[in-house]
C-alpha cells in the first residue's frame, strides 16, 4: 500500500513540479549554456566576451559589489591561467584592475586620494550610493548584478531573453515616459532602456557582435559572477556520487549477507 | 528575577527614541505616491486626484470590515493628501499602489484589496491601513511622528 503511495507521490512531483513557476510574463527561450549538465563548465571565451559587455555597457549604471578583480583570474573565471596559482599575480587581472581609479586615503596625510586599482580591489560602483544611483536613472535603482543570475526566476535565460527582447509596445499598451516595453519583464514595463545594439561591443575573438550574442554572453558572465564555484562543485559532485553509489552497493551486499538466514 | 531576561527582548532605548520625519510634498505629482522609511516601516504619502477622493467618499456608506468615512482619514481641508503606514494589516507585507479591485492598494502576499482611502474592502486583512500621527508644518511640508 505504502509503495503505491510513494509511486503516486513521485508521479505528482513530476507533474506538479514545473507548475510551481508562476508565469505572467513571456517565457524565456532555453539556451544551451556550456555550464549546464552534470559535467558542465564555463566557456572561457564566452565569459571574456560577457565581461566585455558588462564592462562597456552594464557597468555604466549597475554595480557589482561582490566581485573583485582577482575573481576574474580565479579557477573557472574569464581570465584564469593555470600558470598563476595566485589570482592576484595574473597579468590580465592586474592590467584590468590598474585601469580603475579607486578611492583611498593617503597613508601619510589622511587626505582622500584616487589610486590605480589592484586585483584585490572590488569592482568600482558607478554611483557613490543608492540615492545617487536612483537620481541618475529617473528614480529607478539599477540593481546590483553580483547575484543577478540567481536572483531572478529563469536565471541567465531570463537575463538573455530580457536584454534581447525589447520590442515596440503592442497597440493598446500605454508606455509612460521613463519606461520601456519588454514582454519578458513581469508587468511588461521596465525602466531600463534597451542597453544593447549590434556591434555596440567589439569582441576581441572576432565573434560577430549581434544583440543576441551580446545578451547570451553577458548572461553567461553573470551566471559565473553569481556562482563562481560551479565547476568545482560539479567536479566534486561526480566524485562524491560515484563514492556513494559504490558505498551503497557495498552496504547492500553486507545487508544481504547479514540477513541471508533470517526470514523477514 | 526572570523579568530582566524577558524585558531585554523589548525595544531598546535607542529604538524607543523615535525619530520623526519631515517631507516636502511638492515632490509628489498628483496621482503619485512616495514611500519613505519611518521607524523601519514603509510610509506611504499619496497625492490623490479628485477622482480618487470622490471614489473614496462615494463608498463611505458601503459595507466594509472596518468602516470609517474618508473624512476621518485625512487632515481637514487636505483631502488630496493621504498619509498611511504602508504595512498590510493582515501580516505586514507592503501593498502595491494602484492595484486591486478598488484602485487603492493591493497586497500581493494574501490578496487584500484596499480602496483609495486605504480602507480594507476585500481579503483577509482585518483593519484599514493605519494613519500615523502627523501634522502639516506648512501647505507643502508634513511632519510624521
Amino acid at each position, binding site marked *: *500500500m*505504502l509503495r503505491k*503511495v510513494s509511486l*503516486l*507521490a513521485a508521479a*505528482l512531483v513530476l507533474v506538479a513540479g514545473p*507548475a510551481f513557476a*508562476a508565469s505572467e510574463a513571456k517565457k524565456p527561450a532555453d539556451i544551451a549554456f556550456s555550464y549546464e549538465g*552534470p559535467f558542465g563548465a564555463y566557456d572561457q571565451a564566452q565569459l571574456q566576451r560577457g565581461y566585455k559587455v558588462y564592462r562597456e555597457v552594464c557597468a555604466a549604471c549597475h554595480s557589482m559589489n*561582490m566581485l573583485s578583480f582577482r575573481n576574474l583570474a580565479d579557477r573557472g573565471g574569464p581570465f584564469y591561467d593555470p600558470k598563476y596559482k595566485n589570482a592576484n599575480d595574473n597579468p590580465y587581472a592586474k592590467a584590468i584592475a590598474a585601469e580603475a581609479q579607486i578611492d583611498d586615503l593617503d597613508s601619510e596625510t589622511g587626505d582622500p586620494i584616487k589610486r590605480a586599482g589592484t586585483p584585490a580591489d572590488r569592482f568600482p560602483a558607478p554611483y557613490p550610493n543608492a540615492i545617487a544611483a536612483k537620481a541618475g536613472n529617473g528614480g529607478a535603482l539599477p*540593481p546590483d548584478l*553580483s*547575484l543577478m543570475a*540567481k*536572483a*531572478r*526566476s529563469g*536565471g541567465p535565460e531570463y537575463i538573455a531573453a530580457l536584454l534581447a527582447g525589447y520590442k515596440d509596445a503592442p497597440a493598446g499598451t500605454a508606455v509612460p515616459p521613463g519606461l520601456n516595453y519588454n514582454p519578458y519583464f*513581469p508587468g511588461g514595463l521596465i525602466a531600463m532602456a534597451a542597453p544593447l545594439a549590434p556591434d555596440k561591443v567589439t569582441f576581441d575573438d572576432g565573434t560577430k557582435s549581434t544583440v543576441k550574442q551580446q545578451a547570451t554572453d553577458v548572461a553567461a558572465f553573470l551566471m559565473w559572477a*553569481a556562482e563562481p*564555484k560551479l565547476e568545482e*562543485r*560539479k567536479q*566534486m*559532485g*561526480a566524485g*562524491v*556520487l560515484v563514492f*556513494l*553509489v559504490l558505498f*551503497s552497493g557495498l*552496504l547492500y551486499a553486507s*545487508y544481504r549477507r547479514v*540477513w541471508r538466514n*533470517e*526470514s*523477514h | 528575577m526572570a523579568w530582566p531576561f524577558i524585558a531585554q*527582548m523589548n*525595544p*531598546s532605548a535607542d*529604538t524607543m527614541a523615535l525619530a520623526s520625519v519631515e517631507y516636502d510634498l511638492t515632490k509628489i505629482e498628483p496621482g503619485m505616491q512616495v*514611500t519613505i*522609511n519611518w*521607524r*523601519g*516601516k*514603509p510610509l506611504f504619502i499619496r497625492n490623490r486626484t479628485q477622482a480618487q477622493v470622490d471614489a473614496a467618499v462615494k463608498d463611505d456608506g458601503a459595507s466594509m470590515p472596518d468602516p470609517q468615512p474618508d473624512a476621518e482619514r485625512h487632515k481637514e481641508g487636505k483631502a488630496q493628501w493621504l498619509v498611511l503606514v504602508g504595512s498590510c494589516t*493582515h*501580516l*505586514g*507585507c*507592503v501593498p502595491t499602489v494602484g492595484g486591486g479591485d478598488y484602485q487603492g492598494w493591493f497586497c*500581493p*502576499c*494574501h*490578496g487584500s484589496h484596499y480602496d483609495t482611502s486605504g480602507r480594507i474592502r476585500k*481579503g*483577509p*486583512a*482585518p483593519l484599514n491601513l493605519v494613519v500615523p500621527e502627523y501634522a502639516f508644518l506648512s501647505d507643502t511640508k508634513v511632519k510624521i511622528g
Partner: protein
Amino acid sequence: MSGHSTYQPKNAFSRWMDARLPVGRLVWDSFVDYPTPRNLNYWYTFGGILSLCLGVQIITGIVLAMHYTPSAAGAFNSVEHIMRNVNYGWLIRYIHSNGASMFFIAVYLHMFRGLYYGSYKAPREVLWILGCVIYLLMMATAFMGYVLPWGQMSFHGAVVITNLLGAFPIVGETITTLLWGGFAVDEPTLKRFFSLHYLLPFVIAGVVVLHVWALHVVGQNNPTGVEPKSKADTVPFTPYATVKDGFAMSVFLILFATFVFYMPNALGHADNYIAANPLVTPAHIVPEWYFLPFYAILRAVPDKLMGVLAMFGAIGCLFALPWLDTSKVKSMRYRPQAQLYFVIFVVTCWILGVCGGKLPDDHVIPHLKTFTLFDADLNSYVWLSRITTLYYFAYFLVVMPVLGLVEKPRPVPETISSPVLGDSDKKD
C-alpha cells in the same frame, strides 16, 4: 528495555568503568543487543536517517557560524563571503541549506509511516508526542535559519510569520513587539533569531534523546502492529538493523548529494538572493516548501485570527492523534478502508503544498472561469485549499474516531512471524 542486560565487559578497563559509569552497557543494550522486530521495512529506516540529518546540520551550522555576521548590514554580505571566499564555504553552506530540506523530507516520511502503521497508539503515545515536539522545534529552527541570510524572502517571511502572532487578541501586539525588539522586523530580530537558531538544535538533540529513550522503553512498532511475543519475532539491533539503516542512509545521501552538487538552489527561492529591503515586498511571497501546506491552510480561512488558529490547529491535531484514533487494530495493513482515507490524506497534504505555493486567486485549471462563490472563483487555489483543508481536519477529527468504530478490519496475525491464513496483503 527488557530489564535484563546481556552486557559482558571484556577487559579490566571496561569492568572498572562499568562499575562506575556504565556507558558501555548503555550502548550495548540500546544499539547492539536491543531486540528489533524482524519484519521492519525500509520505511522504518528514517529514524536513523533523521539523526544523521541532525548531526549534519549541527556540524555544518557550527562551522557556518564561524564566518557569519548576524547584523542587518552584514548578514547578506557575510553569506556571500562564505559562498565566494571561505575555503569550501559554498559546499558547507549548500549542505546546510539543502540539509534543512532533506531533514524535512525524512521527517515527513517518518511521520507518514507512523501514521500508517499506528505507531502513535498505546503504549507509544508519549513517544509520538515527543516526536511532535521535535517537529515543532524543527519548524521553529528552520524558520529562524531561513531568516539569517537576510534576503528578501528571509525578511518578508519573518514579517509574515511574526505578524501571525499579532492575530491573537489583546496580547498579540505585545508578543510581536517582544519578538521583534522594535516596531518592525529589524536588526534586533535578526540577532535574537541567530542566537535561538544556534540554541534550538541542541534542544532538539535533547528531545531526540528522550524520543529514543521512550522508544527503547516501549519497543519499536512494526508493520503488523502486533507486539513481539517471543525471541523468534525479533533480531538483535546489531548487525541486523544497523546494516539496513546504514544502507538506507547511504541511499538517502545520494539524493542529498544530488541536490547539493547539481541543483543546490532548486528548493530555494530566487528572491532570497536579493538583499532584504523593508520597503518592497516580493510580488509572490512563499515560505520554504516544507511549510507550504500550513501556509495554504492559513490562507484558506478568510478571517485573520481563525486562519492562524487553523494553522496551529493543524499541528495540534497531531498531538491529539493517539486519542482521536479509536481503532483497536494498530496497523493499517489490516484496515482496508483506513488505507483509502490515508492515501487521500497524503494526496491532500500534497495538494495543500501546491496551493501554498500559488497565488490564492490563480485558476487551478488555466483560463477556465466558473462562478464566484462568496469571495473567489470556484476554480481558484483558494477554493482548492479550502476543500483540502476541510479534509485535513476531517481526517483527524471525523475519520479517525468514527472509522475505528465502524470499520471491520481484516484478521490480524497472532505473532509477527506467523502469517495469517488468506492474508493477501503481506507484501507491502
